[in-house]
Each structure stands twice: as structure tokens, then as C-alpha cells.
């Protein structure tokens, strides 16, 4: 009892000087609408929890990590293999990054669906958009600090995008890289951004974000028909918190607490089971056998960069993000009042769905990258026996040419090979012999011309083989201008047909 009294006295001594007890108590116990004590409202606090963990693990990594182009990669190996629990701290930080991006996105979707960005919480949303950008910025710069092949070529992609900015492209590239090439000063720059600049901004903006949540109150559960009007909303909200309100702590806070605990547990489990991310190959640009790929949350961008129409690419690359971010920031100014419930905002909900489906589709494409030639297919995937059976010697020679000239890198046979161009298992049903010759020698669309790289004999053999590629039941393609509508025995006997 005596000890308790001493502690209370000690706390009192501090509080008479700091005078924080009362405002903290008030903030904790401020009244919020009862219906916000819901599992739908836990993602913001979970993002904050993960951010704090990222600070802790990030500081731990800084004890060992060396931000030098020559030694960063080696210091990561030391962390992974020599430092006690180094691998685990790296795993926590890497998985924490993924968790944080995911939670911030889910939080944003929830806020949008519940109309929480509307009056009077417009600025809270705008700051939230900046926080999303900072989170993505942390994820990208963090990927650079994992200074491996992917990081090196990822920086190359960044420099190439900067180099497309009109007039000031070159100075921008140099400012980004901290010099003329991707090297030591580039890594130092990204280290400063990742460790000092963005975290500092995150702390400041998260503070502002939370302050506004406190001052303006947590958005009530939206009811269809309960429309936000500037003239009446504040009064209505105040009445709601009085009539049907609860204290934030402990009544609404319980679920946040439980969910945050679950997230930390999930993080620890992921880090333990799956371990740290990379580093992959050393950041040595002379090793050109690199297949650079960004981290998961940037795969959709990687896919979009392959699929944008080339003639609009620069414009879309430079203007697209400005428009997208501008729209997100301006959103509460465009629709700051009106219905909050998702049940009464079908267009908005369809937009969310469209964005989610598009990002998921792009991400999925990014994982398989079908637009990229499969560099080793020509030497690692034999032509399926089924597609060689019954062929003449010339046709088989054509199959050899097909492999040797690396056609397989872009064209699949029997489901194996690149997907850059169409699969050729049935090409003879689509193109006639004449068309095949022209396509191979001159190229068309996305296909390069092979005229200079094939001797006439090779071309003859290759086209003979391609003409044999159709299933037994299908007639090969024919030139309608040269033959009558009824197939003659001569045209239908074109190729062995199996």
C-alpha cells in the first residue's frame, strides 16, 4: 500500500510539472459513436502499430547495415548469417513493410467506402493520401537499400523515367542518382531519404492525422439516407456521441488492441516461417544475366510499364501519377457532402472494385511477365516429340532451326517457351506458307525480321516445319485468292497433318 502511494505521489510530482495527465485522459475518454467500436475500424491503428515496429526494427538494422555501395550487400549477408537474430530483424522489417502497405491500403478502402473523407474530415483524408505516398516511398527506398541486382536495375528504371522529363531530365537524373551513374552516392542518398527524411515526415503527418481524428471525431457508421450537410453535420454528430456514444478507451479501443496484437503475431509468424527477403545477386552491373523485378507491391507498375501503348508512354508515365494523386487529394473537395453509405454510392463502389481488380490483374501479370522473352527456353525446352512425329527430314531440320534461332524464347510449343508471341502449335491453320515466309523474314507487329539471320536453306526448312504445325482434324490455312472455295486435294494435302 505504501509503495502504491509513493508511486501515485511520484506521478503527481511529474504531472504538476508536465501537466499532460488531464489532456491525455480527456483524449482517451473522448466520446465516440457506439457503432464505431467495430472490427471495420481497426486498420488505421494497426497501420500505426506496424509503423512503430518498423521504426524499432529499422533502428536495429542501422546498427549493422553499411550504406556503402561496396559493402551494403556484404553487410546484409552478415545480418542474414552471422549477427544473432540478424535474419529475424531483417525478416520482421521486410514483412513489416508488406504488412504496412497492405494495412494502409485496406484502411484507405474502408475510409472511402464509409464516406469518412466527407465534411468535416476532408483534410484528414488529404493527409492520409500523403501518408500512403510516404508508405509507398518507404517501401521503394527500402528495396533500394537491399542493395542487390534488383535494387541496381530498379534504380536504372527510376533514372530512365526521370530522363523522360522534358528540359530538366538530365539534371533530375543526376539529382536522383547523386552523380552521373548508379553508385555509392546513389545509395547514400536513398539511405538519407529512407532513414531520415521520409520517417521524419511520417511522424509529423501521422501526428496531424491523429490530431484531426481526435478533434473531428471518428466517422460514425454510415446509414443510407443519413446525408452529410455542412450546416447540420457537426450538431448531429455531437448529439450522436452524447445520445449513443461510448468512451474511446476502453469501449472502442478493445478491438483495436486485439487486432493490433493479432497483426504483430502474424508478422512474427511470417518472419519466422518465411525469413528475410534477399538480398539476391550482388549489385554488379557487369553481370548482365539479370532479370530485375520489383517487390510485390510494385509489380502492377512493372506490368503497366510493359503494357502501355509506346507512343503515349512518356505522357502517361509523367502525367498519369500527377492526375491520379491530384484526384485522390481533391476527392473530398469534389464530393465533400451527401450520402456516406456504400449502399447509396454504386458508382463509387464500382470504381473501387474496378481499381482493385485492375491492380490485381496487373500484379498477376507482373508475376509471370508474359511480355518478356524467356531467355533460356531455346536451350532448355526440347521440341515436344508429339510435334516431331511423322515429319519429313526437311521439317525436322526446320525444328532444329526453330530452336537454334531462339524462336522458342518468344513462341511456346506444347505449352513451354516464351509467351511474347503467339504459341505456334497450330500456326499452320492461321498462316499460309507464303505468309509464314514473309512473317519470318520481314517481321511484323512485335516480331523482329529474321531476314539477315537466316540462310535461304534455313528459311525453307523452318517454314516447312511451321507449315506442319496443325492438329490432324484441322485444315491448314490457304490463300482464298488463289484457290476455289472447295478445297482441292492439292491444298488439303499440305503438310502431314499430325
Amino acid at each position, binding site marked *: 500500500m505504501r509503495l502504491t502511494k509513493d508511486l501515485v505521489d511520484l506521478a*503527481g510530482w511529474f*504531472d*504538476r510539472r508536465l*501537466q499532460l*495527465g488531464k489532456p491525455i485522459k480527456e483524449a482517451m475518454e473522448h466520446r465516440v459513436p457506439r457503432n464505431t467500436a467495430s472490427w471495420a475500424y481497426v486498420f488505421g491503428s494497426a497501420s500505426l502499430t506496424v509503423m512503430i515496429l518498423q521504426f524499432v526494427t529499422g533502428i536495429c538494422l542501422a546498427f549493422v547495415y553499411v550504406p556503402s*555501395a*561496396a*559493402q551494403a550487400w556484404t553487410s546484409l549477408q552478415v545480418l542474414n548469417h552471422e549477427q544473432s537474430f540478424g535474419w529475424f530483424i531483417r525478416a520482421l522489417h521486410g514483412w513489416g513493410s508488406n504488412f504496412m502497405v497492405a494495412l494502409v491500403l485496406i484502411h484507405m478502402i474502408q475510409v472511402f467506402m464509409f464516406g469518412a473523407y466527407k465534411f468535416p474530415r476532408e483534410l484528414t483524408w488529404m493527409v492520409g493520401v500523403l501518408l500512403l505516398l510516404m508508405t509507398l516511398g518507404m517501401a521503394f527506398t527500402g528495396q533500394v537499400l537491399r542493395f542487390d541486382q534488383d535494387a*541496381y*536495375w530498379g534504380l*536504372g528504371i527510376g*533514372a*530512365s*523515367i*526521370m*530522363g*523522360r522529363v522534358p528540359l530538366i*531530365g*538530365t*539534371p533530375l*537524373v*543526376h*539529382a536522383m*542518382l547523386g*552523380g*552521373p*551513374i548508379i*553508385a*555509392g*552516392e*546513389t545509395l547514400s542518398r536513398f539511405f538519407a531519404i529512407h532513414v531520415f527524411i521520409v520517417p521524419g515526415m511520417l511522424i509529423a503527418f501521422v501526428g496531424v492525422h491523429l490530431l484531426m481524428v481526435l478533434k473531428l471525431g471518428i466517422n460514425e457508421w454510415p446509414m443510407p439516407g443519413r446525408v452529410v450537410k455542412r450546416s447540420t453535420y457537426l450538431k448531429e454528430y455531437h448529439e450522436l456521441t452524447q445520445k449513443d456514444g461510448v468512451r474511446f478507451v476502453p469501449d472502442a479501443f478493445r478491438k483495436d488492441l486485439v487486432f493490433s496484437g493479432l497483426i504483430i503475431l502474424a508478422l512474427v509468424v511470417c518472419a519466422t516461417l518465411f525469413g528475410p527477403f534477399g538480398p539476391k545477386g*550482388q*549489385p*554488379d*552491373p*557487369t553481370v*548482365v*544475366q539479370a532479370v*530485375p523485378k520489383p517487390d510485390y507491391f510494385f509489380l502492377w507498375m*512493372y506490368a503497366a*510499364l*510493359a503494357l502501355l501503348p*509506346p507512343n503515349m*508512354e512518356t505522357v502517361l508515365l509523367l502525367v498519369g501519377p500527377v492526375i491520379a494523386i491530384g484526384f485522390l487529394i481533391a476527392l473530398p473537395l469534389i464530393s465533400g457532402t451527401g450520402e456516406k453509405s456504400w449502399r447509396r454510392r454504386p458508382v463509387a463502389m464500382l470504381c473501387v472494385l474496378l481499381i482493385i481488380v485492375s491492380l490485381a490483374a496487373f500484379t498477376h501479370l507482373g508475376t509471370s511477365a508474359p*511480355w*518478356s*522473352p524467356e*531467355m533460356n527456353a*531455346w536451350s532448355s525446352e526440347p521440341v515436344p516429340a508429339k510435334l516431331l512425329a511423322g515429319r519429313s527430314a526437311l521439317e525436322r531440320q526446320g525444328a532444329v532451326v526453330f530452336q537454334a*534461332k*531462339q*524462336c522458342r*524464347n518468344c513462341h511456346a510449343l506444347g505449352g513451354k517457351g516464351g509467351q511474347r508471341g503467339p504459341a505456334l502449335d497450330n500456326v499452320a491453320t492461321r498462316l499460309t506458307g507464303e505468309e509464314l515466309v514473309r512473317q519470318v523474314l520481314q*517481321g511484323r*507487329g*512485335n516480331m*523482329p*525480321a*529474321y531476314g*539477315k539471320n537466316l540462310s535461304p536453306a534455313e528459311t525453307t526448312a523452318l517454314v516447312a516445319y511451321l507449315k506442319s504445325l496443325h492438329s490432324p482434324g484441322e485444315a491448314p490455312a490457304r490463300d482464298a485468292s488463289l484457290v476455289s472455295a472447295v478445297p482441292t486435294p492439292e491444298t488439303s494435302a499440305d503438310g502431314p497433318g499430325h
Partner: protein
Amino acid sequence: MPENTQEAERVQEPQATAKKVSRRQMLMTFGVALNAVAGVLFAIPVVGYIFGPSRRKEMKKELAWVTLGSLTQFPEGETRLATYRNPFVRPWDGDTGNIPCWVRRISADKFQVFAINCTHLGCPVRWFPQSGLFMCPCHGGAYYADGARASGPPPRGLFKYDFKIEGGQVLIKAGQVPTLAQPPSQACLDQPRRCECA
């Protein structure tokens, strides 16, 4: 019961006369101006420091002739990978200071030296002698043996370095990461708008 010292010590705003305000206001104005001047003096070197690498004078210094090796390393009619140490390096650059490029020897003294970077987004292109193509692993760009764009998203052919042959050595003018805004050929540094010249 916490003693609220702040409340007790709060001084009432003085009901200043016009004369007093003017003197105090002058000090205030002076203070603001002084800090503005000091702030600018502080900020100029900071901005100059951060954007130092972007200064045109600095950028010109970065280009230099570097050797790729002797002529005998590059057989006629072949395209070979060559590497050089970037002319502008820091002691802590490590492997990142070694830059690769593709050297195509057309005839005895006719060369083409291509940058490793795809003109689309800078990924490392690979040479496939069998099909006579450069292929990019990122977004499916392909180029012919002479560097011309063959297919995919690249907006132009491969970047080329200026080269010369001296004392049996192949030299190229290099030092900067090639981008659309800054192709490596010197002719383009002076005329950045005519980038296709590279």
C-alpha cells in the same frame, strides 16, 4: 490537485499606445528580415549541396575517354561484352563503378559500341548471336544487331557511345548513365534536342 502555474503567470497583453507599437513593431520587422536573410544564406549552400551533381559544369567534367581493351579482343563480325571502370568514381563505389557495354566490330576499324541499358527503362539488354538480337529481360524490348529497334516498347534503337581507336586500343567516351534525355554520344550533349543523332 495540480497547481496551475501557467494560468497564474500568464501576463496580460499590454494595451500599447501607437508610439510603443511602432518601436516594437520595428524590432519585430527587423527580426523577421534578419532571419529571412540569414535563412537564405543558410539555404543556398544546402540546396547547392543537394543538387550539386546536377550542375552543368559538373556534368561536363564527368565524361572521359576510357579504354575497353585491345583491338584483338574484338573479332571482326562479332559482338562482345566489354566492361570499363567509370571515369568518375568514389572509393566506396565497389562493383557499381564497373560498367558493361556491347562492342560490335563490323570491320577492321568500323565499330559500334552500344550501352547496356535498354532505351525503354534502362534494364540490361543481352546479346543473342544465334538470332542476332539484343533482348531485354524487363518489358520485352528487342533490337537488331546494328542496335536498331526490332520490337517491344523501346522508343528508339540502342544508345551508342562515341568511339576511337588509339594505339591498338578501343576507347569510348563514357561516364554517365545513358537516358533518353542524355544519350552517351558527345554530339548529343551539346545538342540535347537532337537525341536521335546517337
